[in-house]
């Protein structure tokens, strides 16, 4: 019994090392002075040289700004559409077109990106021929594509939150005189807000990170950050990318740390509430 517990535990630790070692190596070498990314220049390191180089790279900064704007719009669009789809799938039982909607919301999650990208571009080309819109590809088509594949993830998150949701809460609100639209805004929305928020973050990250689909639907002058990184690392390793990776890791880690502290705080408050409830029996 003991030995198996030991085996899986060792596997877990090794697995975590496997997951984090590459990230850690990027962080370490971002402070390396040498151009030869992986050879540690012990004399002149650590240095913030590459961060300085990064800050003056207008191509990367411009691409990052474009990526942020696309991700903001895409995540918001995906959250709206995904919440609607999640509501319909979780709540409306067997409606006409349910199978169609359910299929179309899970398929993009596993669909190889090259296929999604290719098909979206061919759609935009065909649309332009047919109705003269969109005029070429660029930020608009990237955003439309991102909304489409991100909403699938939001749908899953919202749908699973709603399936664990006590439907009598909505019935109670209706019973007390609230119309369906009001029920949604006063009861349903506030209660699924955490799921919607994590759906939004997920969509933002996916949009911010996407390369393959974006490459298909992007045009000249609309290079996103992943596209710029890809073209740089494809033809050789550059140390400023290490610096960029470190900044991104830092941002994510800060966000996670804040949310962990906040969750800890909420849990503590919750425990206190439970004690309060137990003390005030009956």
């Amino acid at each position, binding site marked *: 019994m003991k030995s198996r517990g030991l085996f899986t535990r060792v596997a877990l630790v090794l697995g975590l090392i496997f997951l984090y070692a590459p990230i850690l190596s990027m962080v370490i070498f971002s402070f390396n002075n040498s151009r030869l990314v992986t050879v540690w220049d012990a004399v002149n390191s650590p240095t913030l040289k590459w961060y300085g180089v990064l800050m003056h790279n207008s191509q990367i900064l411009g691409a990052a700004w474009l990526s942020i704007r696309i991700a903001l719009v895409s995540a918001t669009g995906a959250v709206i559409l995904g919440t609607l789809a999640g509501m319909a799938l979780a709540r409306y039982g067997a409606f006409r077109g349910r199978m169609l909607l359910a299929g179309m919301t899970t398929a993009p999650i596993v669909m190889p990106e090259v296929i999604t990208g290719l098909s979206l571009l061919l759609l935009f080309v065909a649309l332009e021929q047919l109705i003269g819109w969109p005029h070429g590809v660029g930020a608009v088509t990237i955003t439309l594509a991102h909304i489409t594949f991100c909403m699938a993830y939001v749908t899953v998150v919202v749908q699973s939150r709603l399936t664990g949701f*006590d439907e*009598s*809460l909505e*019935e*109670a*609100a*209706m*019973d*007390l*005189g*609230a*119309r369906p639209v*009001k029920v949604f805004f*006063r*009861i349903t929305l*506030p*209660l699924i807000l955490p799921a919607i928020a994590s759906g939004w973050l997920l969509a933002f990250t996916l949009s911010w990170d996407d390369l393959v689909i974006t490459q298909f639907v992007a045009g000249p002058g609309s290079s996103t950050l992943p596209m710029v990184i890809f073209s740089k690392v494809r033809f050789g390793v550059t140390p400023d990318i290490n610096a960029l990776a470190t900044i991104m890791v830092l941002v994510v880690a800060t966000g996670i740390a804040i949310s962990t502290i906040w969750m800890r705080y909420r849990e503590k408050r*919750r425990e206190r*509430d*439970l004690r*309060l*409830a*137990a003390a*005030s*029996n*009956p």
Partner: protein
Amino acid sequence: MPAIDSAQAYARIAGVTKKFGDFAAVDNVSLDIRRGEIFCLLGGSGSGKTTLLRMLAGFETPTSGTIHIDGADMSTTPPYERPVNMMFQSYALFPHMSVERNVAFGLEQEGVSRERAKRQVAEILDMVKMGGFGARKPHQLSGGQRQRVALARALVKKPKLLLLDEPLAALDKKLREHTQFELISIQQRMGVTFIVVTHDQEEAMTLGTRLGVMNQGRIVQVGSPSDIYESPSNRFVADFIGSVNMFEGQVLQGGTDAVRIDCAELRGTVRAERTVACANGATVWTAIRPEKIGISRQQPGGADPAENLVRGTVREIAYMGDMSIYLVQIDSGKMMRVTLPNTMRGRERPIVREESVWLSWHGSSPVVLTE
């Protein structure tokens, strides 16, 4: 105390059927609810009682039939426009709102002014003894407190009908008994008509002015608690409410003051002092409640030895504290259930297992059932 107006139906359910696909969850139910009463719908799971309640609330629409409340046809009225409120089994308190906001929610929808709403909320919270808890969130309350808030939230709108779905099911046994009486007293003070759905017969008996027993989508009997217990109208009700010893038999001799029935399983005759419309020779069932049977070592004297008397052997005795249950195997092999109150402490020579005994009952005890 509000007068129960027995002449006029306050809510009238007429020929209501609800089908889910081919399955009729509620099957042609007609029911009149009187103003000011507590009407209990009693039935097992899948009996259709909850579906009927949800149709009254407006969450389900009847496949056919009509529902009138205080004279108004409710068939097409959505739940948010009905003069009806519901207390949910899960209580359905909005977890993101304080107790006060929960209770005020219904008033806000009516457009009641802030001050008036505040006053009404305070009043109703006082009434359910939750006066000091207005600022708390639902998860900061115990089960019993949540139940009161749910009640207050439904009552504050002064509905014509208050629907309660298993109102006490989530409470523990001690609290349940206490809350039953509190519910009755609140109902009497407010004068609101209650319709309670429950699967718990004890709860139904205690709460209900009248009971409607449901089985497979139909109402099988309506009556006062004692009517239903003492005079069940069919085998389902007799068996469902309390426990009962049931024997099949043939009518030997009908009559105006008593019926005599030949029961093969008893190897004897049951004489029931009831008037039942039945022909001689017809197959009927006779039901005898366990507490209405006497148990003794000697053959009880005075009685006709061929009537309302049977010999058996005690197989099991379960001591329940306030009473004891005896399982007696009678000579035909059938088991009978007899309960005796433990009125005296330390009886001298209690009846023990494997002892042979006589079971007897008075002619007023058996109920004769034709269906």
